[in-house]
Each structure stands twice: as structure tokens, then as C-alpha cells.
């Protein structure tokens, strides 16, 4: 594990916070710039089993590539994205950040805890998404980029009517 005192750790934190700022600010095109060409963005299904990891290796809620994430972002500009009309207000809270060296020199494995608050319109009830993010960050031309993200949510029955936001 890379120590919080290591400059590399601070760089990872800076990346995660900047990313969250873009997501919470609705700057999705800019967010896409932080992703590598070969990004894998997955939201495996949470299951309740007697033993095992609690997430299905056969079923996912989302399995995205850069092209499909770009499509989702383009959709928001069509005037027909009713699930995001009005747009969700999100707040990404990222804590318990753990950084480990990746298999390749330019890569880092980053695990963090995630709590996302989502409010909509004048609704007085909000959605809370809680879970763990398992990220692979890769240094490309001197900048960190997101090469893989697996989101493990802590709900087997998603307590929300949709996942129209990005984690």
C-alpha cells in the first residue's frame, strides 16, 4: 500500500477530487476527457448469498466502454433525456482511499469508499448510493487517467428508480 505521505497518494487524491467536482458540476464532457480509450466501467449486481463476495460475476447493471459512456453523455443534450429532466443534483463523497502499485509501472490500483447523494427537482426524498469503487489509474502523457472502474454497491435491490448518473 502506498503511504498517504507519498506524493503519489496526494496526486491520486487530487485526481479523485477533481473528477468528483466535474461529475457534481454536470461537466460530463470534461469528465470523459479523464478516461482512457480502453476504459472499462462496470457496475456488477449485488446479490445475497450464503457465502462469497456478495456480487454476481454473471450479471451487471452496467458494462460500459468509452463509446457507450460518450453516447450516454450525448443523450443528455438531446432534450429527450427525461430521467435527467431536471438534472440530478449529486454529491460524490469519496473516502478511505487506498492506493497500491499496479501490475504495470504506469498504473495504480485505487480503492475508495463512495457515498453519492442524489436529489431531484423539488423532491424531498433523496437517493443514496453507497459502495466501493475499485479503480485502475494509468499515467498517460504525464497525466493520470481512469482506465477501469468497478462499482460495488451495498444494495441488492437498488433503492432508486434509475442509475442515470455516473459514479
Amino acid at each position: 500500500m502506498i503511504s498517504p505521505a507519498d506524493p503519489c497518494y496526494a496526486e491520486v487524491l487530487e485526481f479523485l477530487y477533481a473528477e468528483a467536482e466535474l461529475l457534481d458540476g454536470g461537466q460530463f464532457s470534461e469528465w470523459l476527457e479523464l478516461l482512457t480509450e480502453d476504459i472499462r466501467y462496470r457496475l456488477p449486481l449485488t446479490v445475497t448469498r450464503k457465502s462469497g463476495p456478495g456480487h454476481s460475476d454473471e450479471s451487471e447493471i452496467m458494462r460500459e466502454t468509452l463509446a457507450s459512456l460518450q453516447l450516454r453523455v450525448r443523450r443528455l443534450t438531446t432534450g429527450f433525456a427525461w430521467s435527467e429532466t431536471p438534472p440530478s443534483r449529486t454529491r460524490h463523497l469519496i473516502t478511505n482511499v487506498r492506493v497500491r502499485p499496479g501490475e504495470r509501472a504506469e498504473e495504480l490500483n485505487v480503492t475508495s469508499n463512495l457515498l453519492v447523494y442524489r436529489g431531484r427537482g423539488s423532491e424531498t426524498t433523496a437517493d443514496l448510493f453507497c459502495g466501493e469503487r475499485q479503480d485502475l489509474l494509468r499515467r498517460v502523457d504525464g497525466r493520470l487517467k481512469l482506465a477501469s472502474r468497478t462499482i460495488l454497491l451495498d444494495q441488492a435491490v437498488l433503492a432508486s428508480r434509475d442509475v442515470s448518473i455516473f459514479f
Partner: protein
Amino acid sequence: MHTAEIAGLVDVEAGLVSPRIFNDRTIHGLELERIFARSWLFVAHESEIPAPGDFVSRLMGTDGVIVSRGAEGQIRVLLNACRHRGRRVCMQDAGKTAQFKCPYHGWTYSVSGELLGVPFFESYQGQLDMSELGLLPAPRVETCHGLIFASWDESAVPLSEYLGPLAWVFGMLFDRTNAVEVVGPPIRWVAPANWKLGAANFAGDGHHVAVTHGFVNSLGIKRTPRGRAVSYVVPAEHGHLGNLGGWPADANDGPFLALPQEIWPEMEQRLDAKQFELMRGLRVIVGNIFPNLSFLETAATGAHEWAGPEDLASMSFLTLRLWQPRGPDWMEVWTWQLMDRSAPDWWKQASRECYLREFGPGGMFEQDDMANWSSITQNLESPAARRISLQYGMGLGALPLEEWPGPGLAYAKPGVGEISERLFYGHWQKRMLSGEGQR
């Protein structure tokens, strides 16, 4: 609630529906008794419990049940409640086991539901008949093309009779190859919406697509081919609706629902000639089995925009979904994707990704549906809103078609408008009016 009051909720002839049916607590309580406690309900697909000892936890209306395969291969549907004090005996979504043990006092049941052991049995001094105290089994369990249905109504008509002509349609979806099986466990989520809105939409609301899912056209993704196509609406006596949409004759982008060519010979072998020829021209099959099981297989044109290789014109996906009632204004959605085992691996992967990008809580189509149905449910709860009548009157004069290769009857599309929803709500009302003893 008086009969006259229920009779005033739906007017099939005029195509009018009362907002009350989407959020009224009394109406909802009656639905659970008169519809969910008596209908054939889908509980699982056989491929979810392939081997003895396999089980899944499911809902029949609001009742939690265990669907299990016993040692001898027999499928059973058991109320998930200990016969001693009523505690849940199975807390997992799915698994494999020899027995279920109640965590309270330790009554133990076999995977088939027989009561095997009771601690301090001798203290009952021979007064406890264990043979009578197995987990309460649903008295009727039958399957159709791998789909397992159960009913609490002992006198329910046989499942094949209940499904009527839809069993023939189901053959084209679930029995066209040797193994049509589920992809992983079901994806579940909740929405502040009444369950009927999902069921009626899938029963045949074709004309919401252009606006609700208008982003597709707006982004220039080719979706609905232009030109007149032969399409059918197939109603069934027990409130089910099937819609079979065809490709325009000169724009058939993906025969056989855009299924991969590799499985066409197998389909020809298994299906009857009428089914096979009908499927050649189809691009979508969508509908609802009363009350709450919807099905959809649709070709996605411009497929490469969603997933798969760049030159892929069309592909398809097959899904089942249950709109589970969780109160008058809440539902829990359960969704499965099914796949032909003999389809090529690259196609299966592309179909899965295409499905997830369009449906499920992350699906770009389904999340807009959820927004609509949630808004309707919440919006109609106030007094003035309850005074309006909702309009389901499009295409009131439609007449059945002369030429239809399947069993039962069919109407032609377009031109029949909201007939599917009228038939769904009409049947709902009929069931709500059926009191005790009138099934």
C-alpha cells in the same frame, strides 16, 4: 369497496380510466387478494434452478416464496415462512441446499418443503403431525417453455389454458432453440410507481416510443425502419396481450428478430412452419401476461451504436420483467435477460451490452419509462387530479384481422392505438369485480 364503485373505475367502451387505480390503498388491497392471490404468477425460469437442491427466493405479489428443485427433480414453490412462528427460513437470493433451518427455534425443512425436524419433538407428546406442517406449498405449479408459474388458487385453469394463444407466441421466444436460458441473477430496483403502469405499457403502448425515447432519433441512431409493416396485436381471454411487429417488406434489416444466423436452422427444426415463417418478418415481440409479467424481444437497429462490431446492422435481446406491487404507489422491478445457448459468444456479449445500455436501471430507455410512471403515480394522488379521466381511446373501432397464422385472433397495427391497454384495464376490472367464489 362497492361493486358500482369498481365498475366506475374503467370504461372500456369509452376508453377511460380513473386515476384512483394507480394510488388508492383500498384498491391496492383488493388487487392483492383478488388478482395476485389467485392468478398464475411467474416465479422463475427453469435455468435458474437446473439441479436438485437449487433454489431461488421470489415474490408472488407480496408473499415471499422459495422456488426449489427437489432431490427427484420436482419443482416446488413454498411460502418462505416457518410453520412454527412464521419466520423467514431462507434469507438468500439463491443457492443450493439440502435443507432450510428456521433461525428461531430450529424447525428444519427439506429443499422440497417437508418438515424434517422439530427440536423437543417428544415434548409435543404425539400431538404434532409433522407430515401436515411442511412449508406451505403453492397448490399449483406448472411450466411453459421453461417459465415456471405458480398459483395459490387450487381451482385455477391449467396454465396452458390460462396463457391461451400467448403460449404459441412464447414458443417463438423461449422454445426456439434447445436451451434459452437466463443470464445471471435478476436485476432489481424500486420505483415510486404503480405496477400496472409497467404492465400496461408493455401490453402494447407502441406510440410512447417516439417521444419518451426520442433521444434515439435525436442522436441519429437508426431505430424504427420507415415503411408500412405487417404487425399484430394478439389478445388472450385471461387479460394477456402480445404484440408482434414486422419489418417493412423492403427494409428487413434483420430477419427472425435479428437473431444470429447460426441459430436459424435450429429454430426451423424446433418451431412449427407457421411460427418460423412469421418470425422471418418480425422485428419485435412485446407484451404482458396478466397480471405483471412482461416480455420483450426487440431488434436494435444501428446496433453498433449500442455495442458490438462496427459493421453490425441489427441485433436483439430478449427480456422478462415482473412489476411487483409494494404498495399502491411503489413497485419493485425484477428483470431478466435470456439468451439462446447456441448463439455465438461474440453475439451473446454484444446482445448483453446492448440490453444493459437500453434496459434495466442503467438502461437509457427504461430510465425514461421510470420517470414517466413515477410522475404519473405521484401526480394523480391529489383531489383535483383524481377528478380527471385518463384517455385510452385511440383506435376504438378496430376489428379483428382475417389473416393471422396463429391461434386466437389478432388485430392489425397501426390503427388499433390503445386497444392493448384498454383490454388490460378491462380485464383488471373484471378480476377486481370477481368476489369470493367467482373465479
